[in-house]
């Protein structure tokens, strides 16, 4: 069975719908807004010598840490931040430097656990359920094409759409960031590999990567996280057959993922939830893991398992269930 025409169909349907344009609009509007807000706040607070500022910040954070009133999770974060800024100061690098490429890199981090998954859900939640809602599923499944091919083509189209969205997100962030902070700086060194082991920050693995390489890795990881969320949203779309229900479920899961590590940092089982594992690019920049003991490879494995299981269940349900809608 020829498969490409089917994928072509599904991509056509995805791109022709308003939601793809809405996704683009969200990317543009959000990036524009953040860049605008940052330039505004920088203007209000005229910069002095960055070295002085960084040293003041370290001192301030050390005071917090010593006061002993910080909760456990924040203490780890403060320790990491002190170490990171200090490390930069020691090497005469501005820890708060900003440029178009750096802004794009920061976008990968910031969007990996909420924005990109959200857009993946926007596409995935409706890719099967909309066919049920329109009644077109009856035409789609009475063509001389196996159900498995129909569903695979949808999955492939979804992967294409998510990939496109991540790429566009990076491009838009770079364009807007560049507009405000300059387009150059892809070669600048970035320090990565800070590790936190038992309350202290480990510098052993810290190394400087050229920014483009670091950004590529970060976007790759954000893309992988978005794909996983796409696969799970795809499952809800197949099972629930209603776009609204599928979206609601997935949004609730995402929100739970952002709240849980904060309100219940000691509940260890949550590391097996997919939402807890989404901020993959954060690992790369060295931020503390959401739950103690989680590593990049652990999260990648957990996400992969979730994606495989979701896809398998989606196929199982779709191939067997009678279409009575």
């Amino acid at each position, binding site marked *: *069975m*020829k498969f490409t*025409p*089917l994928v*072509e*169909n599904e991509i*056509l*349907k995805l791109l*022709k*719908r*308003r939601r793809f344009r809405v996704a683009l609009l969200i990317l543009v509007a959000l990036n524009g807004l953040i860049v605008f807000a940052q330039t505004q706040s920088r203007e209000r607070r005229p910069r002095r010598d960055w070295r002085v500022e960084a040293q003041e910040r370290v001192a301030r954070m050390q005071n917090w840490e010593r006061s002993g009133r910080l909760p456990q999770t924040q203490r780890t974060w403060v320790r990491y931040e002190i170490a990171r800024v200090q490390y930069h100061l020691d090497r005469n690098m501005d820890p708060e430097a900003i440029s178009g490429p750096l802004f794009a890199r920061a976008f990968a981090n910031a969007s990996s656990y909420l924005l990109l998954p959200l857009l993946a859900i926007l596409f995935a939640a409706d890719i099967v359920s909309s066919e049920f809602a*329109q*009644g*077109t599923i*009856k*035409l*789609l*499944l*009475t*063509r*001389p*094409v*196996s159900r498995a091919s129909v569903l695979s083509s949808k999955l492939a189209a979804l992967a294409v759409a998510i990939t496109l969205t991540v790429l566009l997100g990076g491009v838009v962030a770079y364009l807007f960031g560049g507009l405000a902070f300059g387009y150059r700086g892809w070669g600048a060194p970035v320090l990565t590999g800070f590790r936190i082991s038992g309350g202290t920050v480990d510098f052993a693995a810290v190394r400087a990567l050229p920014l483009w390489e670091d950004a590529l890795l970060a976007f790759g990881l954000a893309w992988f996280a978005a794909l996983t969320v796409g696969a799970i949203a795809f499952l809800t779309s197949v099972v629930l057959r209603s776009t609204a229900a599928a979206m609601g479920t997935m949004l609730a899961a995402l929100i739970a993922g952002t709240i849980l590590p904060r309100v219940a940092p000691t509940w260890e089982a949550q590391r097996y939830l997919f939402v807890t594992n989404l901020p993959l690019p954060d690992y790369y920049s060295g931020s503390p893991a959401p739950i103690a003991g989680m590593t990049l490879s652990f999260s990648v494995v957990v996400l992969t398992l979730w994606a495989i299981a979701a896809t398998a269940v989606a196929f199982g349900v779709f191939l067997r269930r*009678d*279409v*009575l809608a």
Partner: protein
Amino acid sequence: MTSAVATSERTLALSIKPRRSEDSAPATARLTDSIGPRRRRAAMTSAAYPRPVGSPVPCERESPSTSTSRFPACLGASGVTGAGGEAPSSPPAEPRIASQNPTAKTAPAARASAAGTCHNQNREERIQSDDTFRDVGRAVVLSAEGLTKRFGKREVVSNVSFEIAAGEVFGFLGPNGAGKTTTIRMLVGLARPDRGRVRIGGFDIERDFARAMSRVGCIVESTDLYPYLTGRENLLHFARMLPDGGESRIAELSALVALEERLDDRVATYSLGMRQRLGLAQALLGAPDLLILDEPANGLDPAGIREIRQLIRHLAADLGIAVFVSSHLLAEVEQMCDRVAIIHRGRTLAMGPVRELLESRGAERLLFRARPAEHAAEILTPFGRDGAARVEGEESVSSDLSRERVPEALAALAAAGVLVFGVERQASTLEEVFLEVTGGETV
């Protein structure tokens, strides 16, 4: 084995296209005579189809399912005889008994060659080797055997069987909730039957789904296509899902359904009738042997209904497509279908050629013009065959008594002092047959 044979035949049929389009010229001519205003469109379609009159539905050789004898005979359930006579090129279907008559043995050969069902090189061999053809006359395109579907404990479809032959329009009638839609869903593989099986062109739809469905075009329940795509994009979308691609047929088909001018507008802007027609064009993209149409006249105005009816007749008569139509519009079915099945509470209550159904059921119903009507009804009831006499109006009573008992009944009426002004035969309609077999439930 069966599938391999059928497939090769199909390929062959497509490959000898040029000669065949010559063959189909007479059909075009007939068509333009019978369907005046559609002249140009119809001519285009005939040329567009790689298949001439009444052919080549893949002939099924080995399978015994083409023989009708193994099905429980419902009323006149010939399975595949068809009403005949609608396709000018094929001789009228013979009564079933004819197949048991040795002299009728030449008939299938004549039919097969006239219909061009089989191919030159093996026609002789086929006719000799294929007993089913002697019984059948035309190839069975769709066969449903003992379809049963349960939802929980409730059996919504019970043991429904029928066959549809090439060029035949088969009507599927039933009140709402009778199991029509569930049956259709089983026919096209949307729902899996708990028991029974469906074969299309000889292919079992569970085991050979893709090959079976490549012969089918269908509209199930709604004809809604993708509203955010244009008509052309919708057709292209479904053409891409066909094994041989249907792109080349888009122009002809959009002309056939009179949508050429709006083809590049989004479907969201179409009227209901236009959507219905686009749905039909979609169903025809794959040059199907079988069309399954669920309520094709739904939401259409009378002119639209008439157009659809003419189109369906044309497809069946001139292109040999088997058409399965479910409907609740009895008058429509009566005018359009060769055979009907009446389904009620999941069971087939009656099945047979429309004419036979009408004759066997309501033909003997008599209308007495008599006063007082109520009294007349009381007297007439014991004379009836099974049903009670019904008061139809102030002066009219209908009864199903047989012709032989009319004098007796009249004498009884006269003796009782009922004034009889006349007795007439009541013309029966499918509606009456329907009401009778379903026990008076409305459609």
